[in-house]
């Protein structure tokens, strides 16, 4: 120590060469490349969607695609066949998607919010440690399992219940798919909302309780209003997940493109139709196949918009307390 403490010019080494520079730049380059893969793939997917969708719109006008109410994308085997032209009106698919997502949100919002409030405000540490992981297991169940649960357990149950009270229920009903999808997105809502509620400062609870408010009053009048932007964000994220969900609807909602608001009818969704259009051997220049890309583009834009707004809401909320 004493030797070093003296100012000997040879101890003061600063020209150690390029070791740090080369190491740093290799690392930096690797990281740039890795992140470029993600960006590149995204751009690639969007481009392929757009290019193929444009091909499709050359065959079917975009106005017909967006505004016509009939969907039956069969292609003719012979040119003189009846109904040789497929019908590519996306509206029944869109309403089907919305109907199922709406049912899912109606199921998931109260369940998810109530569990989030319970976890954040009422649960003891012990029960929180048990319940939170259980909810997260729900999020880890593969959607195909939810799918056959919906198709083989819930749908027959609804049909049976319906017929016993004299209602006619399709064997593949929007209700069955929506209910199960609702259960699937509960953990998404509860976990995000729980985080948001926990982010409300303890000082707010103290202030309210110190004024003699009950816990319920505190939650209703202070905590929820403060957390509502974040909760709205979590609901929007859950909705966009529901709209893009495929497996459950393929298995439980059916393929009949009915334009209906009746949850007991069979409906189909954008995702389920894309699966149907692209399974099996396909000609890649037929309107039927190309329509999958147009559907994909539409779905992509819808969920992109939802995600964009939900992230903005969540971000705006975060700025309030940081």
């Amino acid at each position, binding site marked *: 120590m004493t030797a070093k403490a003296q100012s000997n010019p040879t101890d003061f080494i600063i020209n150690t060469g390029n070791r740090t520079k080369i190491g740093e730049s290799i690392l930096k380059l690797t990281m740039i490349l890795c992140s470029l893969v993600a960006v590149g793939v995204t751009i690639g997917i969007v481009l392929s969607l757009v290019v193929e969708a444009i091909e499709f719109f050359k065959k079917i006008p975009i106005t017909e695609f967006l505004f016509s109410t009939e969907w039956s994308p069969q292609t003719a085997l012979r040119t003189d066949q009846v109904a040789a032209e497929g019908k590519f009106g996306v509206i029944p698919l869109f309403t089907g998607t919305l109907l199922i997502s709406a049912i899912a949100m109606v199921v998931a919002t109260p369940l998810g919010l109530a569990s989030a409030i319970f976890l954040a405000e009422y649960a003891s540490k012990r029960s929180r440690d048990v319940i939170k992981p259980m909810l997260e297991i729900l999020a880890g169940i593969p959607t195909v399992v939810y799918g056959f649960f919906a198709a083989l357990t819930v749908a027959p149950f609804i049909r049976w219940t319906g017929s016993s009270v004299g209602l006619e229920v399709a064997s593949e009903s929007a209700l069955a798919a929506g209910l199960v999808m609702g259960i699937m997105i509960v953990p998404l809502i509860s976990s995000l909302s729980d985080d948001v509620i926990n982010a409300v400062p303890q000082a707010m609870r103290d*202030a309210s309780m110190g004024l003699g*408010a009950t816990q319920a009053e505190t939650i209703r009048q202070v905590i929820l209003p403060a957390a509502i932007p974040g909760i709205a964000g979590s609901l929007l994220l859950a909705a966009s997940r529901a709209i893009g969900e495929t497996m459950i609807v393929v298995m439980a909602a059916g393929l009949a493109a009915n334009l209906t608001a009746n949850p007991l009818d069979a409906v189909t969704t954008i995702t389920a139709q894309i699966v149907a259009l692209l399974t099996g051997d396909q000609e890649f220049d037929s309107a039927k196949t190309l329509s999958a890309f147009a559907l994909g583009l539409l779905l992509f834009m819808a969920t992109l918009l939802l995600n964009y707004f939900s992230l903005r809401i969540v971000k705006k909320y975060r700025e309030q307390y940081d």
Partner: protein
Amino acid sequence: MTKTPIITARDVDVFYGQKQALDKINLEIPENKVTSLIGPSGCGKTTFLRCINRMNDLVDICRVEGEIKIADQDIYAANVDVVALRSQVGMVFQKPNPFPKSIFDNVAYGPRIHGLTSSKAEMEELVEWSLIKAGLWEEVKDRLQETGTGLSGGQQQRLCIARAIAVKPRVVLMDEPCSALDPIATAIIEELIDELRKNFTIIIVTHSMQQAARVSQRTAFFHMGNLVESGPTKTIFTSPKDERTQNYITGRIG
């Protein structure tokens, strides 16, 4: 002004889990006076303060033994409604914590949940009264609908005081109300405290000996979970009986 104390604490013990935070506290607090609780950090003065409106109930591992009476009623008795107790014993916290609501709604929050007013006009009158009492009315009367979190730190703290007194409590507890404020805002709040004691009994926890000397009539000195001594502020500061008090107020410990 009554001679009998409004608050009496007898043999109060507080435990956090296994750890004892307060040991056999006996203290009497007179009505319509300012009583300051002083002592080094971790001595238990805030813990004692939070016993008086049972805010310690919110801490799972906290256990309170002994007896605290306010106006001759045991506040830890089984039939006590904590909500009613807290409406009688208000609290102002260390850091200003207005709700992210409008200035008006901040003050109206307590009266609303307790149903203190029966008409809009009455509520407006009560909010105005509270803001005047808290010395904030002149500064905010033209912007009652603006959010309370947009005020300066000192204004926020006066808003919190207005919010606390809007419920018309008997006792107002203040937990280092000026520690987050600059000297000017502090001076304003200290004047306010002196004004408020006409209507309320005030107990204030403070780290500033000068503040205790300026605002309070009675002082209690806590040290390591014990109440070392209490009495008129003048006596505590000029002729303390205990050596620890002497050391603390002269700045040798703490």
